[in-house]
């Protein structure tokens, strides 16, 4: 509680608090940027999809085809790139979704540099392990 002494900090008080605040603002801005960017790309992809397929606004048979298992949509970076070249709406959506998925990963990566800036070795290691595990899961997932 308030009576308890706060544990010692390696850096001098005010300076360290300033650095922590800067890191908080940086992470906040990074998350906001990722959110806005992916929202724009995903929405653009859906608009393109409906422009390419005007019947999607009317035909109810199309919905079953679009949402049933085994649908045709990009499921790798290669397929997404190919789809983007043909300006496919769903490939643009996938690009936006990947941007969204990448946002927390970017947040972890930037945090490593933030802890380096705060001169906090233990948390540089902690955050590096988290990033390594994340990258490992992407690597294993793509096998």
């Amino acid at each position, binding site marked *: 509680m308030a009576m308890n002494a706060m544990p010692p900090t390696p850096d001098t008080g005010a300076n360290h608090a300033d650095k922590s605040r800067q890191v908080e603002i940086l992470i906040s801005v990074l998350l906001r940027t990722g959110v806005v960017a992916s929202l724009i790309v995903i929405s653009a992809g859906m608009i393109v999809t409906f422009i390419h397929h005007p019947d999607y606004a*009317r035909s109810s048979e199309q919905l079953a085809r679009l*949402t049933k298992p085994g649908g045709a949509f990009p*499921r790798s970076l290669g397929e997404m790139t190919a789809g983007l070249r043909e300006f496919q709406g769903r490939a643009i959506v996938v690009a936006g979704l990947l941007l969204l998925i990448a946002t927390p*990963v970017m947040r972890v990566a930037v945090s490593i540099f933030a802890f380096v800036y705060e001169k906090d070795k233990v*948390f540089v290691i*902690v955050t590096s392990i988290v990033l390594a595990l994340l990258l490992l899961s992407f690597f294993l*997932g793509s096998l």
Partner: protein
Amino acid sequence: MMEAFNMSPLEFVLLVLGISVVAGAFGALVGLGGGIIVIPALTLLFHIDIRYAAGASIVSVIATSSGAAAAYVRERMTNLRVAMLLEIATTSGALSGAFLAGAIGGRWLFIVFGLILVYSAVAMFRKREDAAPDHVPPSWLADRLRLHGRYFDQAVGREINYRVTHVPLGAALMYVAGVVSGLLGIGSGSLKVPAMDLAMRLPIKVSTATSNFMIGVTAAASAGVYFSRGDIDPFIAAPVAAGVLIGATLGSHLLGRLKGKAIRATFVVVLLFISAQMLWKGIRWR
């Protein structure tokens, strides 16, 4: 499975978008991923295959987390150091869970999901205190890692200093939470919040905000696997992602003004209702 309604793809997208705005706002307020609403809505309302629903939900969890965390980090509701430390446990758990998901059938996914919802409801109902917990046992590890924190609580109008304890127990529970989220595509904030609240003794608002922050990373660890397995259908995931992003951003700005107890009570009822449906679906599986 049969179609619930005869609707066009456009109508489907707009309906899912609307539900997802609500899911995102709800998720941001209570510290759970929007998936807890998105999965039941997609499977029960629109009869979407559970694997696509789980794929859309993992996207929704990331959207809830990033949408709300931007505000919570700025307001210091999130304990960044606790979050970063526990993310080691949740990411390794999520990795284990995502690979088990392919081996476990749809029926058991429904039953496990239903049981998790019942557990979440009980855990959420039991947590009703607002201020920082008293008599927190000393923890050498928490001191060493400087996990203790403080935040300004709008409801009581003063800064709250709090201390953290039982770090290894918290980490173990976080690993389990990671496995569950990898298995089911939910952020398992339902397990993270009780772990931080009951074991590590964080104030409830810090627990939900920190959970919100962490669920994005846990989900990102699984999302790569879901994507390459073809479980993320853009036509289903797009309206979910967009709606949840909008909802979570709105919800994070509402938190300070709303009464936590009312939201919690409503959500417990919703959780119990949905869990009964999911369990029923699993039990009478053909």
